[in-house]
């Protein structure tokens, strides 16, 4: 019995670890392929060999010469940070209000907020564009950020977390003399770090990958974003896979860094969500 126990424990672990290892390799492989393609010689770009026969930086040089990657990275970063921060703020305030207080028409208002999630981007695209044109904001960071400062997705996601927060703690804070504003920042936010971090990373990635809206509101390529820059390597005269992958490698670095920094909170948030 005692001899059997470790064996029984080991076997599932081996299978589990092997499966996880295989899945990890499967997940990492596209990233490896992207980097490998970015350093392959041009005549090897379409071959299926796993390892490049030689390493070259020519695609990185071409990419950097062909598109204003540095200014695109700066614009995309500023846009993503601004959208993430403003959406976090607006969704936190809205979720707090909807979850904490009952007020006349609150449910209807919440329902209307939720319904905006179902309105396709194409419906609001042109009216927003005309409005920004009238404000003379086109080709500015304002045009990229302002129409995206609030989203139903972020509100709904945070509403779940705020709603699940123990009301006794909020009431205790009130009895201790804290007003609504200080309760939000001193009690609620420190305890919602994990969902806020998850939402931040999701919002940042989503903003980082923005394509259609920046395509519409920017004319000047210098003020455009990286996803438009990457698309420029897919041409009707043939796709330039080497520079495209070089650009994709550079463009994915900030996301990777962000994920590494917030990894603990993200994993924690997903685990808690799974257990709830």
């Amino acid at each position, binding site marked *: 019995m005692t001899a059997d126990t470790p064996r029984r424990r080991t076997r599932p672990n081996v299978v589990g670890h092997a499966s996880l290892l295989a899945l990890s390799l499967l997940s990492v492989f596209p990233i490896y392929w992207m980097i490998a393609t970015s350093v392959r010689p041009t*005549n090897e770009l379409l071959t299926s060999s796993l390892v490049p026969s030689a390493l070259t930086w020519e695609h990185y040089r071409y990419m950097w010469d062909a598109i204003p990657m540095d200014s695109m990275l700066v614009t995309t970063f500023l846009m993503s940070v601004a959208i993430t921060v403003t959406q976090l703020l607006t969704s936190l305030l809205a979720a707090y209000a909807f979850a904490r207080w009952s007020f006349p028409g609150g449910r209807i208002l919440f329902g209307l907020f939720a319904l905006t999630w179902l309105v396709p981007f194409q419906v609001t695209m042109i009216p927003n564009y*005309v409005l920004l*044109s009238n404000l003379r904001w086109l080709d500015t960071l304002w045009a990229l950020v302002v129409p995206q400062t609030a989203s139903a997705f972020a509100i709904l996601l945070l509403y779940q977390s705020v709603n699940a927060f123990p009301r006794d703690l909020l009431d205790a804070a009130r009895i201790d003399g804290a007003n609504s504003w200080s309760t939000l920042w001193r009690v609620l936010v420190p305890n919602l770090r994990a969902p806020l971090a998850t939402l931040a990373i999701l919002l940042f990635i989503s903003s980082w990958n923005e394509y259609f809206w920046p395509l519409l509101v920017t*004319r000047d390529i210098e003020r455009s974003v990286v996803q438009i820059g990457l698309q420029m390597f897919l041409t*009707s005269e*043939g796709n330039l896979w080497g520079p495209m992958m070089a650009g994709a490698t550079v463009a994915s670095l900030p996301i990777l860094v962000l994920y590494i920094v917030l990894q603990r909170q993200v994993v924690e948030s997903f685990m808690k969500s799974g257990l709830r």
Partner: protein
Amino acid sequence: MRVLTLLATLFLSTAIAQSYLPPLDPNEDITITFYNYNLASAGLGAQGTQRLIDEFMEANPNVTVEGVGVSSDQMISRIQADVVAGRAPDVAQIVFDDLDFLANGLGITPLEELVAPEELAAHYEGFNPRGLELGRLDGSTYGLAYTFSTPVLWINEDLFRAAGLDPDAPPTTWAAVQAAAQTIQDATDAYGVYVSVFGQFDWMFQSLVLSNSGRVLSEDRSELTFDTPEAIGAVQMLRDLRDAGLKPDLGFNEALEAFLTGNLAMYVQTSAVQSYLLSASQGVFELGAAKLPAFGDKPVQPTNSGSALFILTDDPMKQRAAWELMKFATSERGYTIITTEIGYLPLRPAIVRDPAYLGDWVAANPIVEPNLAQLENLSPWVPFPGPNYKQMALLMMAAVEEAVFGDAPVADVMLDAHERASALMPR
């Protein structure tokens, strides 16, 4: 009475003469916005176009051209949004299938109403007359043909030799293509042939239908005609290649990659990819080119892909600046830049052998010859009418894809699509 008529005629002709574009004022600076889909790429197209713009501005120091990259499939929706916002571009490079919408939907002004006849005639001198037809609709010229390419049968010459075929005598009919594909597949591991006809643009499909003596739209533009035996026959030819196992079930990009890795012997694709194919095939295989094959002894009628330049502004001075840019872009020098740097066809035949322009380049790049030869038999890419023109083309092209790669009878698929698309025709 006769005097009155004479006076009226004089008045009218003066009024008409005054409505033509004024010349550029050397003391007035003008800025025009130029939407261009080649500028939306980071490849040769953008470099060549920027050079074109730079040379134009050097020759016209008081005109500033702001080139804006907009992809070809986004061009019309972007222009529509800009029209609503009151910031439409002044001149734009737009693909030919949008011609009817530009003329009748957006109501742009034909060149004949903007430019004096003698000035138009002077610019048209030396222009390929078939090329000029591409921007015309109902007798008016709305766009000036600009970048331009035709369907070419690209060949992997190494695979031809490996199968005992002569790459210098490429197949000239679809029956010969099928036989060559079979021989190559029997002798090598490569696929036989791929015809890159699928996708949202129907210009190459129109080439096949026209070459099989059919049309996709009646001559009076009142009804869709891709339900005719000729049109269905063109699709059937593709289906037969596929059913014989000679045409692989690949998408657009996969077919291109199969060709460039030496796994596809024949590849029908636009001549616009010439520079890309030449550089990517270097060191992999020897690239050859031939004209679009024929259906038996029927004359081949290739259509064109590509674009025309359209004036969209209402401001006469900007219209003049836009027209000057269009003239430069389609001049001998303009086409020399377009052909050598981007790879599109020149629409001025005289410059092809002229050493001052393309003579040396064509001699050094004989692979362009089949493409040039097809200009002689060129037929315009016909745009569909009405506001639903895109949907009609998409329905037709989706049916072609389903008919070739699916199992249902070709005629059934095409007739069904024809019925649905016909309901979208303007009444």
